[in-house]
């Protein structure tokens, strides 16, 4: 499939973005990692596409960091394989990966410039190229005045920016960002979010691990949800959301709630209703037995005057909690 995709890219080169989106960037196959006390990863397989932002989600201790460390070749898996760009991961692939660990850290006594240069060169960049890139990024963030400051003189947010630059300086094809927004004030979080989207636009693939569900909703194309070392949800964000659709609608209407409820019968279920003012109410109604929204509207229009209808789409937050709880319930059975 990979080869055909490449051929496709050559022949239809005027829509490269579209083609890129179809190609695989990272594939993790049946990864198992056992620690002395517990199983950290239990046969996990995920794959991310080129140029997409992939959200790796899960509660604390689910195994996300272990997974990320394996992709970064910091530790090795007990079983399973990791493929990058269609090839099995090799040692020199580390220059293609940029990693922003959740546990941020820099040398406190080292000057900012020397430090960024050092990490860039450890990633395999040449000295001159690295220097040029550093100037570029520091000018972009308007922080060239920090060059000769020691990290201990910087605030936490400032150090975070430096660390972000270190992560992306060598123009990695795959960015692995572990909780990239934590520690930033809203303005800087926005700045980083824009940078991430910008990098995506430039073709970078991004693996994002976070607890911040609103940011997942905002920027992720696909997600994988892990819990207790297992993968419990995986797919494109829209598909996952579709999967968790409850076919529940919020209907705002003028008229009697009592009449409205009576009209529903057995084909619909009234989940919740609320009187907004004297003669306006909102009701949450779930469709049952293959009924459509049209059926619902037809039914209620006879008794009330409908003002608006919205589908209640589960938020990522709801999905997260629901999926993790369902799994927990399942575990107990």
């Amino acid at each position, binding site marked *: 499939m990979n080869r055909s995709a490449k051929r496709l890219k050559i022949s239809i080169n005027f829509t490269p973005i579209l083609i890129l989106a179809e190609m695989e960037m990272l594939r993790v196959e049946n990864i198992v990692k056992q620690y*002395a006390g517990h199983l950290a990863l239990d046969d996990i397989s995920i794959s991310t596409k080129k140029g997409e932002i992939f959200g790796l989600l899960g509660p604390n201790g689910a195994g996300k960091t272990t997974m990320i*460390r394996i992709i*970064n*070749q*910091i*530790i090795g898996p007990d079983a399973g394989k990791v493929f990058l760009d269609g090839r099995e991961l090799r*040692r020199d692939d*580390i220059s293609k*990966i940029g*990693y922003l*660990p959740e*546990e*941020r*850290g*820099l*040398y*406190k*006594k*080292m000057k900012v410039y020397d430090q960024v240069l*050092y*990490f860039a*060169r*450890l*990633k395999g960049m040449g000295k001159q190229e690295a220097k040029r890139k550093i100037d570029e990024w520091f000018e972009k963030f308007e922080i060239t005045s920090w060059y000769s400051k020691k990290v201990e003189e910087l605030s936490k947010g400032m150090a975070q920016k430096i*660390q972000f630059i*270190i992560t992306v300086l060598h123009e990695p094809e795959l960015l692995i960002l572990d909780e990239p927004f934590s520690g930033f004030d809203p303005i800087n979080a926005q700045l980083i979010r824009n940078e991430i989207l910008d990098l995506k636009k430039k073709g970078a693939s991004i693996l994002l691990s976070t607890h911040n569900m609103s940011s997942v909703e905002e920027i992720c194309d696909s997600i994988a949800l892990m819990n207790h070392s297992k993968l419990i949800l995986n797919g494109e964000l829209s598909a996952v959301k579709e999967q968790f659709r409850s076919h529940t609608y919020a209907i705002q209407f003028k008229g009697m709630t009592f009449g409205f409820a009576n009209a529903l019968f057995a084909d619909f279920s009234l989940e919740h209703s609320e009187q907004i003012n004297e003669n306006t109410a909102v009701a949450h109604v779930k469709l049952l037995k293959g009924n459509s929204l049209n059926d619902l509207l037809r039914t209620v229009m006879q008794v009330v005057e409908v003002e608006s209808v919205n589908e209640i789409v589960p938020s990522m937050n709801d999905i997260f909690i629901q999926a993790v709880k369902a799994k927990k319930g399942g575990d107990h059975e």
Partner: protein
Amino acid sequence: MSKIGLIIQREYASRVKKRSFLVITILVPILIASLGFLAMWLSIQETKNIRVLVVDPGNLCGGKVFVGMEKNPPATFYFQQEDISLEEFQHSEKYKAYDLLLGLDANVITNKGIKGFFREKISTQVEYYIRNKIELRLEEYFALDYGISLNEYRIIRQEFNFHLENIDPEKVDTSYAQWVGFFFSIFIFIFIITYSSQVMRGVIEEKTSRVVEILVSSVKPIQLMMGKIIGIGLVGLTQFAIWIVLVSVALFLMRSFIFQDMMNPENLANAMGPMEGMSADILSGQMDVITKDSELIYIIYQGIPWATLLVLFVLYFIGGYLLYAGLFAVIGAAVDSETDSQQVMLPVMLPLMFSYAVGINIIFNPGGPAALWFSQIPFSSPIIMLQRVAAGTVHIGEVILSLALLTAAFVVILYGAAKVYRTGILMYGKKASWREIFKWLRY
């Protein structure tokens, strides 16, 4: 540049550029040179003359002792027949000038007991001198009793000049050289501890600041560990090289300007006292003292195999440092903060401390079995072997064997350390026990 090269460069530069490095590198040789100067200078100074008040109610000494023709006797004797109380000696203005009170009981000849009181403790050497003089004087009573003339007795009593020498005439007396060897031992001990613990601190710093997480996403843990160990080791060697240059310059300057007279053979002979003028009836105990004084200076400039010691110092420092730095890196990786490291450090510090203690004993017995064994065991050989080399009690084959054993040991230790390090640096928030550390070896 390779990644390990980059790490070495950073570890080295970040330390050498520190102001504390500069200060220590300059201050220590100044300190050593001044101490050395002080020791040499003191060795040619006259010692304080102890004034001894001998209370001799029976007038057994007849108001005098035989002192011979010494130029600078360490003590002078004053006699008094009238007995005094200790309190009087202690407080009376009249006796303030005396440092030591000796009481000769009238029965001293039969009970053979002499008691003395000092104001300030006197050196064993001076004590020996005083005792010798008084004993000699009193023994003359026995001599006379047995019908031996005073002159005859003094001839009998004169000590033999008992002197041990190396059968190889090329080799000079090494008792001072042994002290120099011990000095090297202390030096290598301090060097190993200082720089190995810097490795530990470096590892802890990277671990607690979480820098390690980015580092290991770019380089292998073993590259990181070896880069750190090598970089810091080079700092040690740099410091050592600077010290050697500075101390040599200082010694050279001292030799050219201050001890110039001493190095002149003619003056040396003079300093040793008018030997030709000494007749046989001079007690020779003091002769040695005078000879040895200038011997220290002589030995420092001529009697020590400096070149050999320096080369071996570098080799044993490298070996010992790699061995202990590996162990300290393990400790750094296993703990979460420097305060936690104290306990875990104990088993690593013990062999170092033990070697140091053995080193002290070896000064007095450089050819004994302790010296033989501990100069081969890799954990102690860097500290012990230099002493044996300085003392000249070692064969070249033994040095080669001990270096080979040391190399084998640090290779094994570093191999194991790398495995433990790899696991330990990513374990945050807990202190590993030695049992866990051994478990990590198998990962």
